[in-house]
Structure formats: C-alpha cells, structure tokens
C-alpha cells in the first residue's frame, strides 16, 4: 500500500494546532508504514512546495503573501484539510474584519507599522480556495486530527460531527453547568468534537469549536441575559475565537446593537 504523503502548513496562527498534532506524534510515527510527513516544519521536515495527498493547514489568510501561498498550496494538495479556528473561521484575529479599517489596528499595536504587510481582513482558508475538510477547535482536538489522518489514509472521510457540545456533554455524564450553576455555557450553539472538555471540568464552554449545525443565537442570547450578562458580555461570548463564523457574527452583532 502506498504511503499517504502528508504536509502541515502554517498561516496566521499561534501554532497551537500544530502542537496538538505534535502531542500525538509518537502515535503518528507508529503509522510510518502508512503515513509519510513531507513537510511539517515543527517536526523538522521542510519541503513546503512538494505535492502531497493531504495538506493540513493551520492559520488564517491575513497577509498578501498568504493569499499567494494558499493558492499554490491548493494546486499541490489532493486533499486540503483546515485545522483549527483560524484556518476554518478566520480566528480571533478576524475581529479586525468588524472594524471600519482593519489595518488601523496595526498602527495601534506595532511601533513600526510600515514593516508589517497586512490585509485589512483575516479570513478562513475557504474564502480563497476550496477546502475538503474543516476541523474546528482552538486548538483542534489531537485525537480528532489523529483519527482523521487514519481515515484519510484509508481513503474515507473522517467523522466530523456538527451536533452540539451538549450532546457530547450528556454522553460524558457531566452535570450541566448552565442549569445547575448558572454558568454562561455556549455548548448549545457550539459544535461537538472536543468531547465537552470544558464542562467536564465544571467550566462553561466558550465556543472554541464554532457554530453547531443549528444555531439559535437569539434564544441563547435571551438565556444569557436572564443569567445576568449584559449585552456587551453576551456579544463577547459570540464574538470571540470564532467571531467570523456567520451565525456567531450575526448573534454577536445583534447583541451588541441591542445595548
């Protein structure tokens, strides 16, 4: 059986998703007879322009250089998989998309902004090229990525559920932090994939996996308001890591407008 040629690329991101993959690297290495890393700089393989079966992409497109690079990369990859909130939805850095002039933040943040070449927006990879599979999360769940590699090596599409975090939360046997503790949990509008990690530790979900398949932003907004969150706090719950994901943008801006 021919080995699956895999590459891992970085765009505008924090490297956390690549780290999530590295956390499982020993297991990945055990698949050496089926999977070959062609480019994965954090692991020491550097060959960014090689053609591959599967390219994993971390990070959003937020510079002119990245626009060119993602187009080249697409030509070289049979299957393109985004990993994480940045690559899949634009990331936290997409907050600048909501500003009148996204570039204005550069001047506020960097002492010599003239050296920073930046687009006014940060977008998901799918804004520029076709994406075959999107794995959400900030960071991605390493088990999910590992399982995706194995499925792709076999030529099948990986399991990638879009039901709510609540579904996983109940399967895990967690006590609902919203109902029992009044915590502002985003689980009801967030897609599963993490195994309800935060509620498992008694914390409210902050929606790092992005929107579930059916988002009722208004219903959750009203519930969060009844828990005592003001409109700005509610807007921030939606306009966070996945602020640029359609249903979250809509719910967050609506909450903000109601102030």
């Amino acid at each position, binding site marked *: 059986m021919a080995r699956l040629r895999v590459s891992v690329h970085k765009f505008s991101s924090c490297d956390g998703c690549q780290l999530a993959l590295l956390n499982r690297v020993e297991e990945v290495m*055990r*698949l050496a*007879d*089926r*999977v070959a890393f062609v480019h994965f700089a954090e692991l020491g393989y550097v060959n960014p322009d090689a053609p591959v079966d599967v390219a994993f992409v971390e990070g959003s497109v937020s510079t002119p250089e990245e626009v060119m690079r993602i187009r080249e990369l697409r030509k070289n990859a049979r299957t393109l998989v985004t990993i994480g909130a940045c690559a899949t939805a634009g990331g936290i850095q997409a907050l600048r998309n909501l500003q009148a002039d996204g570039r204005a933040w550069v001047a506020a943040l960097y002492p010599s902004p003239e050296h920073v070449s930046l687009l006014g927006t940060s977008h998901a990879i799918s804004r520029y090229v076709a994406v075959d599979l999107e794995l959400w999360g900030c960071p991605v769940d390493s088990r999910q990525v590992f*399982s995706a590699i*194995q*499925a792709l*090596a*076999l030529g*099948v599409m990986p*399991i990638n559920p*879009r*039901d*709510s975090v*609540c*579904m996983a939360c*109940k*399967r*895990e*046997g*967690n*006590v*609902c932090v*919203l*109902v*029992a*503790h*009044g915590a502002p*949990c985003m*689980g*009801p*509008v967030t897609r599963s994939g993490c195994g309800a990690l935060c509620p498992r530790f*008694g914390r409210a979900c902050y929606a790092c996996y992005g929107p*579930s*398949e*059916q988002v*009722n932003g*208004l*219903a*959750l907004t*009203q*519930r969060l308001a009844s828990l005592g969150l003001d409109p700005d706090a509610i807007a921030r719950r939606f306009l966070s890591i996945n602020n640029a994901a359609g249903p979250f943008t809509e719910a967050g801006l609506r909450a903000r407008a109601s102030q």
Partner: protein
Amino acid sequence: MSRQPDVPSSMVFLPHEGLSGLLDHLRSEGYRCLGPVVRDGAIQMEPVAHPDAFPIGFRDRQEKGTYALEDAGDARMFAFANGPQGLKPWLFSPRETLWHVARRGTALAFEPAEIDAAPLAVIGIRSCDLAAIAIQDRHFLGGARPDPAYAARRGGLFVVAVNCTHAGPTCFCVSTGDGPAARAGFDVALTELEDGFVAAAGSERGERALAGLGLAPAGGAREAAAHERVAAAGSAQTRSLPGRDLQAALLANLLHPRWEAVAGRCLSCGNCTLVCPTCFCHCEREEVSSGGASAEHYREWDSCFSEGHAFIHGLQVRPDIRSRYRQWLTHKLGGWHDQFGRSGCVGCGRCITWCPVGIDITEEAAAVCGAATP
C-alpha cells in the same frame, strides 16, 4: 428479572442504619451497588460502598432550566426528586463498542466486543424510571434480536425502588400514570419515614434479601404513614399533560403556529432527549485505528435534534428546529402509542429541568393540543 408477587408480602420496618445491611447482603451476592450521590452539584447514580455516601438531608430545587441542591441537615436519605439521569447510562451505554474488525492478510476478521455484565444493584430508583426501564426493555429486548449488551446488564439488575415522598415542581408522573409509588419491576421497594423505611419485597430474591436482615413487621401505623406520604407527594404535583393519549390531537395539529413559536426558543441542543429515560435513539459509527489495520464499530446516544437523525440518502427531511421539536413531541407523546402501546413520557420532568432554556413539555403539549395548562 424482578416480578410482581401474586400476594403482596408483608411490610417490614428497616431503620435508616439498617440500610447498610442490605447493601452488604447485595455485595455478598456479587452485586455492584449503585446509589444516589452528590457529584458536581447534582444527584447522580454512582457506585456506592455505604449509605453514608447518599445525599442525607439534601433537598433539590428544580424549575424550568434550573437545578440546585441545599442541605436541610436532617436524616432523610431520599427527600429529593430525581437528578439529571435515571438508570439509562447504566443499561443503555452513552457510547459502546459493538464489534471490532481487523485485517488478516486480505481477509477481514470480525469480533464482537466484550460485554461487561457484572451484576448491578441499584438503590433509590423511582417509579417513573422503573416505567421508563420497562419501555426500554421492550425496545432493546422485545424484538427477534434482543440487544446482547443491554440484555446482559438488564438481566442481572437488582432493583431497590424508593417510593417518592417528595416530588419536585417539574415532576408530573401522576398525570402519566407512572408514580409516585412503584408498582412493578422492583425487588425491594422502600418508603421513607423520619427514622427509616417501610420495606416490601417485589420478588423472591427481594424477599430473601429482606428476610436475611431480621426485620420486624412495620405495623399498621407506619404503613399508613408511608401510604400518606406517597399520596401527598402525588397531590403536590402541579404539572400535568393534557391527556394520556395525545396522538390524535398532535397529528391533527401538525401545522399549529405553536411549533414555530417553540422553535424560536429551542436551541436544538438535544439535552431533553439525552436526559429522557425512555429515549433510545443512537447512531452507529466506524473509527479506524492502527493506520487502517483495524476499526471499531460503536454506537452512541443520538437525538432527533441532530442532523443525522433525519438524513436519508441525499435529503435532510427535518432541516429546521421547528420540524425537529415537532418530531420529538409527536413521537414521544404520539407515535409511541403505536410502537409501545403507551406514551413515551413517564412524567419524570427531566427534559423541563435540564433544558438550558427551560422549555416545558407540558406547556407545549397543552398549547398544541388546545388545552389550557392547569
């Protein structure tokens, strides 16, 4: 399996401190004991070694979308209404491997998953949950091919039921005909008084369990007090469904504007279905391991609020929250009559308490079926 005795056995008195003797007996018979304990701010069924671990003195406060516990500081062991789950996770596992398949050269080898069938004894199960187990029994065991994993766990189950002497505001088992007293499906049933329990056996092994404890007859006064307390818990219930069989009324109202209204509030999160002790829906998936050398076929809890539930080849038949909520209610309170000869609701109230936005099945059913909520 437990049965109802032809002649009700005489009732005995089990003091609070005697309950540990019952647990000891069950353990000596090889059972793993489950009972109510407080975990993460809610009462859950968990493995217990001694009744000291029970929520002694605890009271619950439940309303639409809220749950809280407080310690009243008394000796009552079961003065609370049901917590977030019944026995469902212990009989119908949230996730369970059904088989493994491994590559052997060019052939595939299928192997059934191992079933952990260590016998369970559960202490403190309520009548609504017993009714729910009876429904799940029909679903998992009733057909030509009984589910082996469910059958193994269910077969060994020893049930110590507790008749409710405290109903929560979200309980409505009286209206569905499933409580507050356990009528069938138990080995031992307890009714709690200040200082202990009036106990009755519901099966031969239940009789044996009680006989070994050397208990005195409860006596008429205690029996009457026990009866009164259970009756009071029943009359304290404030919620009800507008009827036992709402199938015709629901099907006549498939285009009722209420479906749209509830869809505006519903998150489609699926919590109601996963806390419901009668819901049995699941999906099955394949997970590859060892780089494709083997795979696991597992099933896990699914819900009519998930997209996969209504996906048939090339078509999503319930594309919005309105149609999914309607599916939940019309199946639970309607279609179940065809499937099981009764409604799928046993009045436990969990879907009301544990709905993050507090949608109330009794209100919605009343609105759609055209009856005023009492």
